[in-house]
């Protein structure tokens, strides 16, 4: 498992665990981010910047602090179409 901040852009991943509290988990579910969900890592900004992901066809910027608490597993076969 990797932290979301350690994943190379262009990788499709499956969310394994959210380390934060319930409040964070609840917010993330509203954006479709919870255990078992697949999404694509689009971009990773340096300088402590956020990670940009694409989930169900929409783009979401995830701040560094949150991204470090999201554990993911790269998907074996590349996903052609998400959403």
């Amino acid at each position, binding site marked *: 498992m990797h932290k979301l901040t350690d994943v190379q852009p262009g990788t499709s991943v499956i969310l394994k665990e959210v380390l934060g509290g319930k409040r964070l988990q609840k917010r*993330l579910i509203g954006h479709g981010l*919870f255990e078992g969900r697949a999404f694509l890592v689009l971009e990773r900004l340096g300088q402590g910047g956020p990670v940009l992901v694409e989930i169900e066809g929409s783009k979401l*910027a995830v701040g560094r602090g949150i991204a470090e608490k999201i554990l993911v597993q790269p998907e074996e076969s590349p996903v052609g179409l998400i959403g």
Partner: protein
Amino acid sequence: MLKAALIGNPNAGKTTLFNALTGARQRVANYPGTTVERKEGGFQALGEDVALIDLPGLYDLTPLSPDEEVVRVALVKERPDVIVQVLDASNLARGLYLTLELLTLETPLVLCLNMLDVAEAKGAHVDSGALSKLLGVPVVETIASKGVGMEALKRTTIKTAKEGGAPKAPRTTYGEPLDFALKTLQSTIEAAPSLESNFPASYLALKLLEGDELLLKAIQAGAGYAPLKAEVQAIRERIGQSTDMMLKQRRYEKASQIAKGVTLLRPKPAQETAGDKLDRLLLNPRVGIPAFLVMLFGVFALTFLLGNPLAEGIERTIGALGAWMIGALGTASPLLASFLTDGVLAGVGAVLTFLPQIAILFLALVAMEDSGAMARAAYLLEGWMSRLGLHGKSVIPMVLGFGCAVPAIMATRIIESRKERLITMFVMPLFSCSARFPIYVLIVAAFFPKPLQPLALFGVYMLGVLLAFLIAVLFKGAFDKEEEGFFLLEIPPYRMPSKKTLLFFTWQRVGQFLKRAGTVIFAFSVLMWAMSRFPSPPANELAAVPEGLRPAYRLGYSFTGRLAKGIEPILEPIGFDGRIGMALIGATLAREIFISQLGIAYALDAPEGASSSLADRLQKDYGPLTGVCLLLYFLIASPCIAASSVMAKESGSPTLAFLQVGFLFALGYAAVFVVYRIGLMLGA
């Protein structure tokens, strides 16, 4: 009169839809006891009047803050006859996640499937008929930005409200043992009428199992509360601690399933969309951040290039009007003529001159927000911002701050951590608002050569931004360090802002400005005129003064003239004289008054018949050093009562608001002092 509530995810096009439905019939107020904005409007169709409330955008009905609780209260306590939910057709699962919750409220529901054009462009076709059948509620297709589907939506809303009754949706299943637990809990609630809650039993059961703290608090006064709480606890213990997360996740999966079932995806085109291509370029910080700055600079250049000729036109019109008034009234009633020309026209007129520039500025701000540019700027700048102790989303209130600090301070609510929110508010006055804009324009026009004017103006704004960042860094340790930054932001697809939306919001802002010019500025112009005109020197004293010096003598004798003399010792060290002092006194109430007050002072001071523009007169009387000092003073030191009171309210700390005013005044005074002294030494 039917009552309807409009709800939806952020970015689903809710505000555009609200405007398209209600037009200009809108009222903005606050929810009692909160600072949450409550927008109300109305429409007519089928011979019925419908009152529509616009609720704040949200992702689900589990409030995590008191501000979000407001939405639930509005839905449950106010009992609208119908709820209209806006869904983004290109992002259906997320919208349906909220829908599945709304269905448990047992209030008639209409789904508005919006942004069909965006979905089609993405290669997705949504079958609204199938969606309607699956959920047992009417679904109306719309493209709010183009006004498509509005009549159908109005009619369906009214029909659904009149039919009444809970939506005929099949119950959402969560799988066992959750379904069994929900049913048991629901029957307990139904058997306990003493609970006295306004919530339907199915909704209450769901939310209690999800561990909704605010809801527990809301019903704890009822007699049936204690046994209910015990039962909820027992169930949660039996199923496990993650009951709440399980319910939410299953609901999202369900929503996702429904969305997939009703969406026909065309095979993804080999080429990426224009928006994706643009994003690959612009979401790279090395390209995106400079592009953002260029865009901001472009806005300021535009206000000059396009706004100046228009402003000059207004100025000429006002001048002609003044000349005509003097001609018509001058001999018959000199005092009335002076009141109308030197007071009203010189005061309100001087401020109105800047109307074109302000309209252009607001138009550009609205376009930036509506097109999706602002969200991208927030994403790109988050890394830098968080190191400054700010938040990526701080960018949005900050850019809004160029319009007005009041909505900007209110917009800091989108920042979810308190510390970053407070710092953003604290430095907000350094983002020059549109009230200071005309002052800058006047001074820049008076003291800078024409080719340098846009750059000078942009420079003032940038200096403010730089100072704001410096102060943020210095103060970041002073604010409580409770939580880490919390940044989660949806990047909406690029959107061409519709002409209707642009004009609507710009008109709203311009309207506020005009209202201000007609009320506050008018009142102060009259007051300033009176203070500058009276008391008059005795006729014999005036007669002893040479003809050409009489206006100046008259002004010095007046109340304002004496007051300005009084504060001269404070202003002298920073190079401001009595006349500027008078204008600064006015400016503490509203910054625009600086210009009207100068206008009045010069009008009363002018020898008969002399009429040259305010900029020309300033240039004649003061040097460029005074110009720079004035720019600095207004950039840093000048307080604004409206902004400070909002600051006190939004931060919950009047002390912080006082500290802010005191700190910025001291800093500004010191900066002007240093610049003035260095300037004098250099012989400027």
